[in-house]
């Protein structure tokens, strides 16, 4: 995955980004073609596969009933785990992928941990006792740059088609009992209208770009993850990577991130709605 570039190639790429005309002809704000497939894993409650450039990610969501967290007894849980498969690169065999996986898990959990944006209250079954825990497993089958954005798009699509069995709560007080429905068609879906997606902006030279190719990542110094809500609000932000970012450039980055994020949300929502009309569930 480490790309070796000559000094001239680096200069060429940086100049391209600064002049808003990258090596493959895209502008700094343009994403590459996104391929998205929903409900690819029948074993899960919800799943999606997303391919962007050379990165391919599989997201599987499995739900289980667990005890509530003592500090948050009225909401459900969302646990995100990232996994870089060895099929993506020989470097990911055994413990080789640990550092990258930790990074991915932390950033994705960070983007998705804001309780105001996420309808975690819906996941509560018996307040103070039981709730749904959504185990989100993000599996990177190919790693070719821009991992966070692809993961978050796949995550949103997977959450959109996640179905949870209906739970019948009976009894009162301490004797409350719950019964999870067995019928595979007796299900409900989460409201994902307010879930954020992550837009990562890479600083390249004096300018910045979204969705960089591997070569562009090699020329970049520092990047910013912006969690963008469909309404255009920013839910979270984090700067990573080695490199300093100028504060004025940072504000521009966030502006662009929000613009791109809103656009992606619109397109994604349109596609997901169209898909919903195809399926019965």
């Amino acid at each position, binding site marked *: *995955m480490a790309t070796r570039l000559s000094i001239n190639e680096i200069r060429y790429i940086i100049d391209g980004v600064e002049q808003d005309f990258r090596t493959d002809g895209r502008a700094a704000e343009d994403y590459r073609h996104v391929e998205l497939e929903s409900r690819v*894993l*029948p*074993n*899960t409650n919800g*799943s999606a596969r997303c391919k962007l450039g*050379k990165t*391919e990610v*599989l997201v*599987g*969501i*499995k739900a*289980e009933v667990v005890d509530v967290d003592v500090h948050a007894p009225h909401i459900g849980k969302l646990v995100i*785990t990232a*996994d870089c*498969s*060895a*099929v*993506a*690169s*020989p470097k990911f*065999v*055994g*413990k080789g992928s640990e550092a990258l996986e930790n990074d991915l898990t932390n950033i994705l959990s960070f983007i998705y941990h804001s309780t105001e944006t996420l309808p975690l209250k819906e996941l509560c079954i018996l307040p103070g006792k039981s709730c749904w825990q959504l*185990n989100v*497993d993000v*599996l990177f*089958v*190919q*790693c*070719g740059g821009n991992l966070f954005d692809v993961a978050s798009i796949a995550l949103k699509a997977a959450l959109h088609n996640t179905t949870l069995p209906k739970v019948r709560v009976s009894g009162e007080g301490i004797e409350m009992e719950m019964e999870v429905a067995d019928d595979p068609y007796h299900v409900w879906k989460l409201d994902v209208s307010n879930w954020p997606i992550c837009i990562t902006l890479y600083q390249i030279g004096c300018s910045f770009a979204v969705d960089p190719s591997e070569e562009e990542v090699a020329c970049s110094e520092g990047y910013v993850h912006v969690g963008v809500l469909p309404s255009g609000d920013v839910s979270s932000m984090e700067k990573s990577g080695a490199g300093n970012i100028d504060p004025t450039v940072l504000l521009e980055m966030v502006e662009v991130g929000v613009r791109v994020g809103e656009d992606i949300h619109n397109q994604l929502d349109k596609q997901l709605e169209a898909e919903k009309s195809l399926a019965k569930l």
Partner: protein
Amino acid sequence: KAVVSTQSTGGLRCDGRRPQEMRKLKCELGVSEGADGSAIVEQGYTKVLVSVFGPHECANRTARNHERAIISCSYNFASFGAAVRKKKMTADKKTTEVGVMIQNTFEAAVMLEKFPKSQIDIYVQVLQGDGGERCVAINATTLALINAGIPLKDYVCACAATVFQDSVLLDINNLEESYRGPLFMLAVMPQTESIVQLQLDHRLHNDHLDKVVRETIQGERERESVCVCNLCV
């Protein structure tokens, strides 16, 4: 003991197949651009992705062999793969064992003498498990090696079987596996009919052994012809 009846009236299995009928097979080659060779094989609901890297220089200089290539294999099961979610464990004994099994299988099948002092990496990722994951992994590895252009002595086809009420059931799914009957896994090179790998779990009566081996090999020949047709496409 709760035994799932795998045969309803008409002699059909729980998913509507006849005893010797194999599951629907779907294969796709060249799915992973970064790898030298890759393949995804789906048998019923079991889906396995295999990537092959190499032959390339040995990562570990002490392990390299001056006469032939070495094979390094890693087998991983995705957390969302099984019906019940599994947390990822890096050095799980079972997955290491399957990795070694696949490595041994292909050391017999790959023409290793053509690449002295090199290493061939085989990485198996089970995306979805519904029975027979080891077999699907072997089938997918054969296709991935072919996609990588690595010379093989023959295809390696694998199939899992069990015996239920005196009849041999081929290509068993998860439900049939959990029934706790004898679990027989066989990998052969169909042209020469030589057995590359054989594993048997639980008990199998000696009288049934011959029948199981013959019928499994028959099933694998069918599998091989499907794979060949697929490759021609």
